């Protein structure tokens, strides 16, 4: 860490102005990517991220609406640079990659990296990542809890050129087209990613022309250093301490026993160490966290726990030491399956929040819903009869905190994607949404209660091949209460067949038919503080609004 700005090249004003321009650049790329993408997963659920890198591969600006992708592209960069010596990279090139064993998160997250050149010298990178609805493999939507290895998880790109000196490499596009279920969607999204990366290159060209290479590069380094200093200052404000916590997945995706994530956090001065020693070995199923995905979860939890506002650069990561035992579920060995890493990543974040809550209970929140109840459906478009992939995931309750109730019905922690509008779903897929409602008594009680979970009923109107999955159905692992607050309700899924049979669902793949219904209930957040201390008017309001039952008002909150 440098203490001061290199005086010859940059001053704090130039750094601030260039920093603002780099932020504007990633925002501009994001606007271009989102608006022109084809699949709802990007457009509606905002499952993408744009970034600018220094020449040596450090993030200097990244948009931040999806924490799961925090810093994610940074792990890919060293691999890209190693596999593609810099002398083989030319202006107008663009690389594609998605391999979780090459710094990727999971195969559906496709990276695009475009180098920026000034006078024949590589000076920066424009990059983005977008979640594609399907990249082939065993399951529609690619993700699969029961996958046994990465070979079930669709096409994998090492970092290959998708553009060569400004010309599209057609073979790559044809290869994708022939290996996925809904090629129109992939190619459309890829075009949007490429356009956004090009826009980033143009903007960076302009900035380098305006400020010169030396000033730009010095300013980029200083922006990264500023974020490191900011992060360290916030960590140092809190007392030193050490805490451990355990969190559990319901099972390994194949019906096995609960799987433990064990973590020890150590806060010393302006450093944080997060050690996963003792965490369960890698799982046989598809829910392992790639090293990249686990690291993003850690970066999120630390930033959130220490109240770091906006701004993601390589500097935010420097004060954090992350110990991920090799061969564990948070850093599996090739070729473990990782497509459904999100469930384990959410639980990883929650376990870290639990550890931090032991150190700073009044600065954190109670446990939050991390079940991520989802489905991916291969079906036929009701009007065109073309094969299409539908996917949706449902939020639940956030934990309460010392100042207020947790948020109701939101996507949580690492994830921040939208719910699929019923009217979009029913027009594009043969699935009717019978209801989407808030669920009474799901929120953990407390002086400040958790947020509520929801129930959505999917009513199938045609034969569909469906992958359902959820975590946190086990009441022992429901969102935990804090400081005397109660835990929230866990998730609950069931399939009600047209013939009247009912089957509970945790993680299943099956064919469903006309008239079958999937009932998905998500969990509520944990409560903070003693429910008997809750403001009486707030209890009456919850009762009036049907957010708690009369029994809960009386028995849990003690309303007379």
């Amino acid at each position, binding site marked *: 860490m440098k203490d001061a700005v290199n005086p010859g090249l940059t001053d704090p004003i130039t750094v601030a102005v260039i920093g603002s321009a780099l932020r504007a650049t990633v925002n501009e790329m994001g606007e*271009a990517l989102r608006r*022109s993408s*084809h699949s709802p997963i990007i457009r509606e659920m905002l499952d993408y991220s744009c970034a600018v890198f220094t020449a040596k591969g450090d993030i200097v600006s990244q948009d931040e609406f999806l924490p799961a992708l925090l810093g994610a592209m940074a792990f890919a960069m060293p691999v890209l640079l190693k596999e593609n010596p810099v002398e083989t990279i030319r202006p107008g090139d663009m690389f594609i990659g998605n391999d979780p064993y090459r710094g990727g998160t999971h195969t559906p997250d496709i990276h695009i990296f475009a180098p920026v050149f000034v006078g024949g010298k590589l000076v920066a990178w424009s990059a983005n990542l977008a979640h594609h609805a399907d990249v082939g493999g065993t399951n529609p939507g690619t993700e699969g809890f029961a996958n046994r290895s990465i070979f079930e998880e669709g096409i994998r790109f090492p970092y290959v050129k998708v553009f060569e000196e400004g010309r599209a490499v057609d073979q790559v596009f044809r290869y994708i087209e022939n290996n996925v279920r809904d090629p129109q969607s992939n190619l459309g999204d890829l075009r949007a990613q490429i356009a956004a990366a090009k826009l980033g290159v143009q903007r960076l060209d302009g900035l380098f022309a305006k400020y010169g290479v030396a000033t730009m590069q010095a300013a980029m380094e200083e922006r990264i250093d500023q974020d490191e200093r900011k992060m360290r200052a916030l960590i140092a404000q809190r007392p030193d301490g050490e805490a451990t916590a355990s969190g559990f997945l319901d099972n390994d995706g194949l019906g096995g026993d609960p799987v433990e994530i064990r973590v020890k956090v150590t806060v010393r001065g302006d450093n944080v160490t997060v050690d996963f020693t003792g965490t369960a070995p890698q799982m046989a199923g598809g829910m392992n966290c790639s090293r990249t995905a686990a690291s993003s979860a850690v970066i999120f939890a630390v*930033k959130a726990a220490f109240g770091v506002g906006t701004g993601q650069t390589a500097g935010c990561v420097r004060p954090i030491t992350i110990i991920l035992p090799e061969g564990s579920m948070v850093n599996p060995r090739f070729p473990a399956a990782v497509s459904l890493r999100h469930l384990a990543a959410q639980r990883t974040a929650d376990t870290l929040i639990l550890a931090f809550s032991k150190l700073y209970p009044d600065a954190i929140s109670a446990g939050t819903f991390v079940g991520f109840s989802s489905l991916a459906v291969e079906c036929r478009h009701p009007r065109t009869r073309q094969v299409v992939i539908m996917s949706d995931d449902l939020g639940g309750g956030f934990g309460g905190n010392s100042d207020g109730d947790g948020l109701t019905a939101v996507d949580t922690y690492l994830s921040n994607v*939208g719910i699929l*509008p019923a009217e979009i779903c029913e027009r594009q897929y043969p699935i009717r949404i019978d*209801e989407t409602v*808030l669920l009474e008594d799901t929120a953990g009680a407390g002086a400040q209660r958790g947020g509520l979970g929801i129930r959505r009923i999917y009513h199938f109107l045609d034969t569909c091949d469906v992958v359902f999955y959820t975590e946190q159905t086990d009441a022992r692992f429901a969102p935990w209460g804090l400081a005397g607050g109660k835990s929230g309700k866990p998730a609950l899924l069931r399939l009600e067949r047209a013939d009247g049979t009912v089957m509970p669902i945790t993680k299943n793949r099956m064919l469903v038919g006309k008239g079958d219904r999937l009932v998905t209930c998500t969990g509520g957040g944990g409560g903070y503080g003693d429910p008997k201390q809750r403001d009486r008017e707030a209890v009456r309001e919850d009762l009036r609004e049907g957010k708690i039952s009369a029994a809960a008002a009386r028995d849990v909150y003690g309303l007379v």
Partner: protein
Amino acid sequence: MRRIAIDTGGTFTDCVLYDGHEKVLAVAKVPSQPKSPDRAIANGINRLLEIAKLKPTDIDQVAHGTTIATNAVIQGRYARAGMITTQGCRDTLEIGSQIRTQPYNLRAEQKKPLIPRDLRIEVPGRLAAMGEEIEAIDEAAVRQAVKALKDKGAEAVAVAGLFSFANPAQEERVAEIVREVAPEMYVMSSAAVSPEVREYPRFATVAVNVGLAPHLDPYLSRLRGFLDAEGFTCPLLIMQSNGGVATDSRCKGDRAHHLVLSGPAGCVMGGLHLTKVAGFDNLVTVDVGGTSADIGMIVGAEARTRMEMLLSNGVPLHLRHLEIETIGAGGGSIAWVDEGGALQVGPQSAGADPGPACFGLTGTEPTLTDAHVVLGRLNQDRILGGELKVHLDLARKAVGALGEKLGLSVEEAALGIVRVADANMAGAIRSVAARNGDDLREFALVAAGGAGALNAVDLARDLGMKAVVVPMRPGLFSAIGVLDARIRHDLVQSVLMFADKPDMALIGRAHETLAEKARAMLAADGAPAKGVEISHQLDLRYLGQEYAVTVTVTPGEAMAEVLKRFHELHDRTYGHSAPGEATEIVAVRAVGYGQLGAVHWPDRTVFGDGRPQTTRQVWFAEAGGYVTAPVYQRAALSPSQTIRGPAIIEQLDTTTVMPPACTARLDSKDNIIITLEALA
């Protein structure tokens, strides 16, 4: 035709009386009265008549831009309303998009929904995806629901159901029953305010409408009542968010939420007026006030509009509106150093109270205005025609303290504040342009509001723009926009068909029906048939895309031609297109315009000798330090004159800063046109 325009701002209400023949008869600036804006308007109108020695019956039209809806939305002042929904969507309004606005905040505050849950009641009834009825409305349940809402004190009811945009019959029936059971309650259905796909934005739009109408309707009635009582017989026109005006009676009820941008719209429409008199077709309007800046876009001599608006509380509003981006960068924006040592400006603002340090009120934090004072860009003694005393020493003290933290001199810190604020504003303008694929090099910048002209040239240079326009009367600019706006009605019919197999008969009928409806509305508004213009549009998209592109069409035009333009427009807007792919038509639109009299701004006839009044030391980055800059009074400029930067041009309501390497001249309408030159 004698016409009055009134633009209500945060501090002042600007009033103009115009004779329709290149003559401004009277101008009045009266203090705004946020609690009862209609009183300020009454004062303003009376003042105008007094100055012009006219009677109310001499006036042919009153047009008004209001911030009453804008403020209600910002402050969350909504009427107590209930909502009746069809089966399964009672909580759509509260669940929303499930997206958090602060993803890194574990302690984010839960916002109250627009309508509380106990006032949202579900009744049996359901439509399928194309509008087919699956389950009929249970009318008895509706009656019960209305009674329950009445008992709970609701003064308005929103009606909302899935797929009502495809078939409004169920919603209409529910609304009918509400009117029957509770004729005193205000009722509105979702398809009536936003007949478009996606339930949450549509439900939210109707919820905002029923929250606003019970407050806005009486305001408009009071205003009309005042005019009637004074003896005015002319129409009252209100500025809408789409940049067009509509009669007061049309702005009540179903259009209440159309007034959310009524205030800021005036500036953009002022920009549109400039396209006619200043010779620029592409403009970015920047209206810089005390706490924020509003950015608008004019492209090809048309104000840019869009459909999705996000209110400050994260609630979406679905309606055609001017694309106006508001950012927290105004004269009062506070400069600070964050934990990492990075300089930040805003979004916190010192506002009018405590105000910038240099005003000598109670403010001590360094603001953007203080930075301009330190650098000599703003008058270091008095502004606002001498009404406001400026304390240079207090500005230097505040900015100096910030400089110390950064290891910079007072001037360097001041320059830094200005540059960071410029960079933030430039970033916002770039994002707005990126959203639509605009190339800013083809645009000129309009500097409006009290603080717009202080940094306009720097901003334009940063964005690669070639020219800046400081309009004839920056302080009256929004009022002129209101005066010049046409009547506008946006009509839409949702459809769903493949573009390669279009139902041309259906589209033709839809164009015709919408056009007839628009013409009838304009005739009823009193718009002469001669000035009526109907623009026809189709919304198209690639199959699987949700966001559509609106393409202007001629009714009966071959679909192949329309598709060609769609691919072109898609490519221009999004940077790619796919002419081979399947496309869908999702909406038929019509926009009806009526002309009640355009503004022909008078040529400037009174000039001065063009000599600077004085000089002062102004710090310019390009010069690397203080430069002795001539200070001109705008009123004293001469018609043939060109002014080279560095220079300052002052007038009552704004200060124009001209850094080196730019040239200003006056056009015949008294606009200052500044041309940027390449820096050496």
